């Protein structure tokens, strides 16, 4: 049985859409909770639910259709002020969202077997629906709404339709009013039995456009379907005619119109208020609104592309980059050989041109893989809300730099570490409201997550204003868990103590809570960041908070590498890990406790000969040796190489699953001459060679070295 349901492309589009709409739903429900009832937000939620309903029913995904349909009913009631968006209602909406997610997951695993039970949440929705609103509540509700959204409407509460206008439309109306035109709200009720209401509404729109200019229509008939037009349709019209004439004309000239009411539109300061309101909100970090308008406009110019196609494109560009390098090399060889030949000059010229174009192409393709980090950050408000609720804490989340773009694969891989850091911050960092008040802090803790670009890197920070890391306790725990000895503990400086939290087997939380401390500690966070060639740093001040700074490369696919030779084999080192390159007479190398060290700028570096690990001979009788100083987080080590070949853009290629994971290599690349070079994974190298402790080794070694030199 093949039909539309089994068409993989359709399914792909559907899944993408589901994800998008679910994210939108989550955002808007959170906004609803934070900002209170605002017709714009309700409309957003409604639209997302409606889209989901439409697409799921097209895919024959019954359960999702039913659930979204029920959600629509509830939302419709809220929209018509027959139901107040109280906390229980919002909680049910969140439950709906969770169930929709579960349904989506089911759909992804096996679309023929949707297991998630939606009956409880459906009951919840129905219970809300059946709660008959009593008249008092309604006025309450609208009053609340008025207060919360700062729209001060008074007399015509029942009568005046409140249009959400953007700036352009507001200006349009203002100008119309100045030039003496009438601005009317035409409230039309269509006959109950009218079929194709949206078509009818559209005809009306055209009709009004003949009489004047329609600024806006509520509900939006162009976007929403028939079922939205259950009640009145309101047209905001700028016209020269007076209200009575319009009313008469509509009744006489149009069919299937049950009633028509035309009244002047009370446009005043209050109608602009929502805009001002938005700007206020944006200071709180919830600045989705203006951007949402932006993205909606942008959406029209995008195309969905299969990720695999992008990867393939990336591969091909990679090959092109390699060939480009080869052309240049061959050109240079030819130039040396036949210096007099002009054709070779041409060839070199062409090679340069090709290389320029390739560079540009590479940049563009890299950009297509970039996504705004909003995709990931969008999940956090909900996460923080739930965490704060479970832990009885008050947390204000500030998100900055959502539009910062980075490679899609990195976004996926950094999600877990970030979630872990956020959990930690809310669970261990931020204190309970009582404790905070006692300490003279505001009872609401602040959690700030930001992202921004810095040169070729992206910096992500997670910062809380909680209690900070207790260094003494860290030391105690590390000793207790036998990560370090008491003697070592005494000699550690602040920096080194903080570094301890990234050691495996470390977790300061005494009680294993539901939220964090499930055995997955900071070491996992660090190894994730390491894997992405990133660096993680911590700044903490007792009582004032903690800040985690993660520095990541923008992309993993192409990196600048330093090519070196070890024996006669060529290896590439990610330049981001290279701190400096030093040439040093061999006799200046000292040995302490069997570990070779070099002193560079008064710092002691452990030296590593990969030769020994590769079973290739060390270079003999060299006067000077080259030391590449490598850094991963706080660790520093000196890699002894035989030759330096220079910097080059290298395309990272996986070694493939047959070879599997080799700890010291992160992949391979193809060099200009067509041969393969392995890319050294600096973190892996440090781990392989330094089974001894490398953190804190510096001081110890330095001390030993001083002793030795005195002898």
């Amino acid at each position, binding site marked *: 049985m093949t039909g539309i349901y089994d068409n993989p492309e359709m399914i792909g589009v559907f899944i993408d859409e589901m994800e998008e709409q679910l994210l939108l739903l989550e955002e808007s429900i959170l906004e609803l909770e934070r900002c209170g009832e605002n017709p714009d937000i309700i409309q957003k939620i409604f639209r997302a639910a409606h889209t989901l309903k439409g697409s799921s029913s097209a895919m024959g995904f019954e359960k999702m259709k039913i659930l979204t349909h029920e959600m629509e009913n509830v939302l419709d009631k809220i929209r018509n002020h027959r139901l107040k968006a109280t906390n229980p209602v919002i909680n049910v909406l969140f439950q709906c969202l969770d169930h929709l997610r579960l349904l989506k997951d089911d759909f992804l695993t096996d679309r023929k077997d949707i297991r998630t039970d939606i009956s409880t949440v459906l009951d919840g929705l129905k219970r809300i629906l059946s709660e008959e609103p009593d008249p008092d509540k309604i006025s309450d509700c609208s009053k609340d709404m008025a207060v919360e959204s700062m729209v001060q409407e008074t007399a015509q509460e029942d009568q005046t339709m409140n249009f959400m206008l953007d700036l352009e439309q507001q200006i349009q109306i203002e100008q119309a009013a100045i030039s003496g035109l009438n601005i009317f709200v035409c409230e039309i009720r269509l006959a109950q039995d009218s079929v194709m209401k949206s078509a009818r509404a559209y005809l009306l729109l055209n009709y009004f456009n003949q009489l004047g200019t329609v600024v806006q229509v509520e509900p939006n008939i162009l976007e929403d379907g028939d079922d939205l037009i259950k009640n009145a349709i309101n047209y905001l019209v700028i016209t020269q005619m007076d209200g009575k004439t319009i009313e008469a004309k509509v009744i006489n000239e149009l069919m299937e119109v049950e009633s028509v009411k035309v009244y002047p539109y009370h446009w005043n300061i209050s109608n602009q208020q929502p805009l001002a309101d938005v700007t206020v909100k944006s200071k709180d970090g919830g600045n989705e609104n203006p951007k949402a308008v932006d993205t909606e406009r942008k959406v029209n110019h995008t195309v969905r592309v299969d990720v695999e196609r992008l990867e393939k494109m990336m*591969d091909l560009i*990679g*090959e092109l980059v*390699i060939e480009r390098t080869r052309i240049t090399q061959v050109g240079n060889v030819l130039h040396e050989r036949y210096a007099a030949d002009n054709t070779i000059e041409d060839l070199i010229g062409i090679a340069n041109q090709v290389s320029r174009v390739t560079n540009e192409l590479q940049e563009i393709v890299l950009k297509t893989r970039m996504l705004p980090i909003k995709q990931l950050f969008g999940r956090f408000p909900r996460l923080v809300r739930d965490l704060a609720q479970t832990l009885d804490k008050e947390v204000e989340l500030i998100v900055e730099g959502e539009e910062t773009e980075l490679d899609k694969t990195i976004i996926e891989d950094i999600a877990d570490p970030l979630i872990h850091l956020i959990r930690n911050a809310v669970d261990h960092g931020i204190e309970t409201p009582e404790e905070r008040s006692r300490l003279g802090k505001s009872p609401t803790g602040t959690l700030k997550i930001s992202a921004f670009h810095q040169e070729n890197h992206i910096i992500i920070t997670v910062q809380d204003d909680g209690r900070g890391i207790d260094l003494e306790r860290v030391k105690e725990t590390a000793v207790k868990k036998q990560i370090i000895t008491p003697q070592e503990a005494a000699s550690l400086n602040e920096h080194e103590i903080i570094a301890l939290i990234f050691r495996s087997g470390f977790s300061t939380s005494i009680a294993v809570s539901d939220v964090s401390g499930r055995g997955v500690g900071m070491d996992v966070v660090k190894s994730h960041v390491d894997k992405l060639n990133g660096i993680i740093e911590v700044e903490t001040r007792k009582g004032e908070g903690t800040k985690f700074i993660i520095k990541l490369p923008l992309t993993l696919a192409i990196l600048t590498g330093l090519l070196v030779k070890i024996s006669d*084999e060529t290896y590439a080192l990610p330049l981001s890990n290279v701190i400096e390159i030093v040439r040093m007479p061999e006799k200046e190398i000292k040995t302490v406790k069997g570990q070779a060290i070099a002193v560079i700028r008064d710092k002691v570096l452990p030296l590593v000969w990969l030769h020994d*690990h*590769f*079973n290739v001979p060390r270079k003999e009788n060299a006067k000077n040796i080259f030391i590449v100083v490598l850094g991963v987080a706080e660790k520093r080590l000196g890699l002894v190489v035989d030759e330096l070949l220079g910097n080059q853009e290298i395309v990272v*290629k*996986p*070694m*493939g*699953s*047959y*070879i*599997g994971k*080799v*700890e*010291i*290599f992160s992949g*391979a690349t*193809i060099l200009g001459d*067509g*041969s*393969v*070079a*392995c890319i050294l994974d600096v973190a892996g190298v440090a781990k*392989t060679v330094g089974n001894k402790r490398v953190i804190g080794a510096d001081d110890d070694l330095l001390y030993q070295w001083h002793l030795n030199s005195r002898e």
Partner: protein
Amino acid sequence: MNELSDNQYVVFEIADGKYAIKISDVYEIIKMKKITVIHNSKPFLEGVINLRGKIVPIVNLHKRLEIENYTLTKTTRVIILKSRDEMVGVIVDKVNQVTGFSDIQPPPEAVAGIDGNYFDGLGISGESVIGILKIEKVLYE
């Protein structure tokens, strides 16, 4: 065993023995290229090559089957196999021909001193008997 005997096989030599691989497992046959050694990996992995922009691992069959190591000659070839959606190359001393077998017998306990488990069977064509390698076993176990 009918299914086996209907197939075509690539016959090649390692040391002095003749072996065969099902042609449907073979992606292509290339001349020896520069191999980059991957240290600290599987013992019988010779290294990797660049096959038109792809990194392809190369297995040393001599080491794998515990035969005396190969010496590079004019006839040395790399047979690129396609297995588990990945390409893996094996080094052979010579590629002889593509052939079918009139009959295929189950493998004995050992074939020319090599563990019988490495074989799918013995292919018989006319006078000669050729061991058919079990790719899955040779490459992965």
